[in-house]
């Protein structure tokens, strides 16, 4: 707080001129920063303990590819969480998208047609979520929980409960999308899902920071009533965030099917937990109003590096869920502590 009233008139302009936080200060006070630090520490420790298996180019390639699917979904999830909502249906939307793509390819259509059909199927599911939440006023939790069941059952019905792998002529181009790699040096590659994740993270970061859409998303989560009164198109933006979340899940499914080379209706089961955890660990506030694209990226990375480390440390893989759950609860608790300190 500035000086007392008598001097106020002289000091106002100088007070206004002070820029209190620069970018670096803001970043270091964010949860994403500390998650980044934790991630680096884990990587250093693991490289030291397991140099032969952890610090290898193959392990880097596989782990970064694995977290990219979740990271892409977590990007969409940050927008939903920023408005104060939640999207539990993303895992099932992956299954629906996978089956839609598989059937399109099976029927002999080209790869790009399968991509469009997959995005369309996911987008429609998101549109239904958004319309019910924004215009019928049902809670996001219930609506997307319903969609979790519906999208999965539609996926099972459409697929006839079989695995789709006999992709027609469109198969190779479709698979290239998810299984491609970018060779940086002769023995160091980046997977195409990771490249997509990096590009999308950057784009979404720009959208949050530089567009009125991004600002309105955060405003809705901060004070929905205020956003409405000031003329923010609240309902339209709510529909858009659920469509966006569904599209990121659909795109993650397209990459995942392309990488695996087969489409199963069970794709993405329980991935909603991972996507939500990644967003929250990266600093998204489940009460709304706070989210960052980089947070989704780094949150997903942390979850998968820890899973990878546990495997290498010889921990039974069935314990992984417990660790993800613990981290999720811990991140929410940390967020609560930070919130209490700020008010």
């Amino acid at each position, binding site marked *: *707080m*500035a000086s007392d009233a008598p001097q*106020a*008139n002289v*000091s*106002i*302009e100088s*007070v*206004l*001129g*002070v*820029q*209190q*936080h620069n970018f670096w200060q803001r970043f270091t006070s964010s949860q994403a920063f500390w998650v980044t630090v934790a991630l680096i520490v884990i990587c250093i420790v693991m490289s030291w303990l397991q140099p032969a298996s952890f610090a290898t180019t193959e392990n880097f390639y596989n782990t970064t590819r694995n977290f990219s699917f979740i990271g892409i979904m977590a990007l969409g999830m940050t927008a939903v969480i920023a408005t104060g909502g939640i999207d539990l249906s993303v895992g099932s939307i992956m299954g629906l998208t996978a089956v839609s793509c598989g059937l399109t390819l099976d029927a002999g259509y080209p790869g790009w047609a399968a991509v469009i059909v997959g995005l369309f199927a996911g987008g429609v599911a998101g549109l239904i979520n958004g319309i019910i939440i924004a215009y019928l006023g049902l809670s996001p939790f219930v609506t997307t929980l319903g969609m979790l069941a519906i999208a999965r059952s539609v996926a099972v019905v459409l697929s006839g409960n079989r695995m789709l792998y006999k992709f027609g002529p469109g198969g190779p181009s479709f698979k290239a999308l998810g299984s491609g790699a970018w060779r940086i040096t002769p023995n160091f590659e980046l997977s195409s899902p990771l490249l997509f994740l990096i590009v999308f993270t950057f784009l979404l970061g720009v959208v949050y*920071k*530089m*567009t*009125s859409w991004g*600002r*309105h998303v*955060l*405003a809705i*989560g*901060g*004070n929905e*009533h*205020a*956003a409405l*009164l*000031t*003329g*923010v198109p609240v309902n339209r933006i709510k529909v858009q965030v659920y469509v966006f979340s569904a599209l990121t899940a659909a795109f993650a499914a397209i990459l995942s099917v392309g990488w695996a080379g087969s489409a199963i209706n069970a794709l993405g089961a329980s991935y909603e937990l991972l996507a939500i955890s990644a967003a929250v660990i990266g600093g998204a506030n489940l009460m709304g*109003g*706070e989210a960052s694209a980089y947070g989704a990226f780094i949150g997903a990375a942390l979850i998968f590096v820890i899973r990878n480390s546990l495997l290498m440390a010889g921990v039974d893989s069935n314990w992984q869920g417990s660790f993800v759950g613990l981290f999720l609860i811990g991140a929410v608790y940390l967020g609560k502590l930070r919130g209490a300190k*700020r*008010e």
Partner: protein
Amino acid sequence: MPILELNQVSKHFGAIHALNEVDMTLAEGEVLGLMGDNGAGKSTLVKVIAGNFPPTHGEIRLSGEPVHFHKPVEAREKGIEVVYQDLALCNNLSAAANVFLGREVKRGAGPFRWLDHRAMAKRAGELFAELKSETRPRDLVRQMSGGQRQAVAIARTRLSKARLVLMDEPTAAISVRQVAEVLDLIRRLKDAGMAIILISHRMPDVFAVCDRVMVMRRGNKVADKPIKATSPEEVTGLITGAIHTA
């Protein structure tokens, strides 16, 4: 010509008559204190003027022209700004972001239109300086005092060419020093030629800044007189019904 004119405005919610045939006028640069007990119809009157819902009967004129609002945004386009009791601020955003919420300044061309953070912070800073408020445009609203929050909400009304500002209990929940700040803000708006309706329960505030006081009871206007021609005792009597009309 008065900025605002209400002719026989009524608002009924089913059988409940929240407003009964209220007449009023308001001139440029005039501050009207609107007083009344809870449920007297003050908030309903303000909401009708602000476009939250249309009146059941009667006519609203702005600078002589009849208006019909269905949404607050429509009233805002006609130069009516509201400072809500809860201020309608987003705590998670900066002061400048709140001032410009819903009408952000952008630059760029075609589909690539970016927020112009610098221009918004600069303009918000100018508005705060005009209001003589020590509020930094880039600070988050959650870190601000009650008086600074009021300044942010009031700066929002200065963004457009507002002609009429409705203030709902701006001094209800803030400290004594901040009340003085807010009353100063109101005087500056008045000096800038705006008409202001101040809803308040606090008699000293009304007598400190208002030119006229209007008292409502059970949906009816029971008094409307210059502040110099009345006294806190009389207004209290009018509010409670001890004095019937004046």
